[in-house]
């Protein structure tokens, strides 16, 4: 189970992601769904709850950087 497998996974925002905030996304991984602390991958992006995001970067143990999966 390599760490690289996290990158590129799709997840859903459960706590708003944005500058100055610690967001939360839930991602299907290892046969279950786990939540990770999330930060925006690009600048001053604000991603509301419920938005589908893609994991751009994974920083072990529990931090990911995400960006919206679809353009608005």
């Amino acid at each position: 189970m390599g760490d690289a497998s996290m990158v590129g996974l799709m997840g859903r925002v459960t706590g708003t992601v944005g500058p100055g905030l610690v967001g939360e996304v839930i991602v299907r991984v290892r046969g279950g769904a786990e939540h990770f602390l999330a930060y925006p991958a690009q600048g001053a992006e604000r991603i509301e709850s419920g938005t589908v995001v893609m994991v751009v970067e994974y920083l072990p143990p529990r931090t990911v950087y995400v960006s919206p999966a679809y353009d608005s």
Partner: protein
Amino acid sequence: MPMFVGVVAGAAVAAVAFLIGLFKMMWRVAEPNEALIISGSKHRTEGLEEGMGFRIVTGRGTMVLPGVQAVRKLSLDLNETELHVDCVTHQGIPLKVRGVVIFKVGDDFVSIANAGRRFLDQQRLMSERVHNVFAGHLRSIVGGLTVEDMIRDREKLTGQTRAACGTEMEKLGLIVDSLQIHEIEDPTGYIQNLAMPHAAAVQRDARIAQAEANRLATEAEQQSFARMAEATRDSEILQAGYQAERDHAAAKARQAGPLADAGARQEVVVQETRVAELEAQRREQQLQVDVRKPADAQAYEKRTLAEADRDARISAAEARARETELAAAAEATRVKQAASAEAEATRTRGEAGASATRATGEAEAAAAQAKGLANAEATRARGLAEAEAIKARAAALAENQEAVVAQQLAENWPEIVRAGASAFGSVDNMVVLNGADGVSELLAKALTMGGTGLGLARKLLASMDQNEPVPNGTSPLNGVVPPAVEKIPVRED
């Protein structure tokens, strides 16, 4: 031989049992909620980078060399920690917060490794450690929030929790599943006061709604009652109508028998009446024949006879009347002629008488005239003489009243004596006891009364002289005074 076989079989069984036991000692299986942390072997490190020095097995079995490698279990179960923290909110309101933190060891190997290194021997103390971490962090979290936020804005609370504790817990290899605030003790009553207007409004709305509901319910109930009453009334009316019809029919049925009876009786009566009428008619006709006709005949006979009789009488009377009339006429003629003859005679006689009487009358008249003239002369002479006498008497009266009175008395003496004798006039049979003397005495007394009267008259006159006017009222004199009274007008003359 069988002994040998038994021993061999037993040895084999023992060997198998030994092998199974050995395998059981070497083969360890990780249960779904735990991670095996195996240390002591440099080899067969999988899934971990260099430098860790132990391997982590989750969800499967692995061979472990007893005595060479050590196997420890790390529970991945959920843990919870009760929090009792005194905090101050963003507004400076002191609160006592009671909550619970639910956390677990992260499922990835990095988290398991971090947690294994920190808590492997202190898994029971993990809650305490986390409590200590969170007690501080919760203060900062609550300090960043207002009471309203804590009550209403869960998103903000979890966001703050993540911001404050997320990275902290990451270091420990733990993840926070949830932070729950169970109870906020509020010594200043801030929350209660906060809720009061809303509670009052809610109560008001509830009461309004309740009252409205009651009203609607009562309305519906009353409508229902009214409908029930209406239905009852309709039903009773219908029942009464049907009952009336039934009674009517029953009465009719009961009356049918008597009615038929009465009808039959009526027929009988009608027929009987008819019979009676016929009989009456027959009897009437019979009577007509038997009684009336003979009676009529008789009456007719009588009437005819009476009329004839009457006519006869009338004729007789008429005849008599005619006879009388004729007789009267004859008598009248005769009398008239007699009367005219008599009248002629009388007239002739009267004329002769009249001329005789006229001659006599003329002679008598002349005689009477002469006699009257003579009388008149005589009367005039007498009147003059009387007048002279009265004048002389008046003069005499003026001179001597007593003489006049005496003269008057003397003139009227016979009258007085008559009046005195009148007392004896009514005596029917007088017995005089003294003989002739008695009679003369009696008469003397009676006459003395006249003398006494004279005395009285004299006295009266004297008193009249003294006090001039003596009323001509009653005086005790009887029958003497009225002539005296008559004198008074004469004297005044």
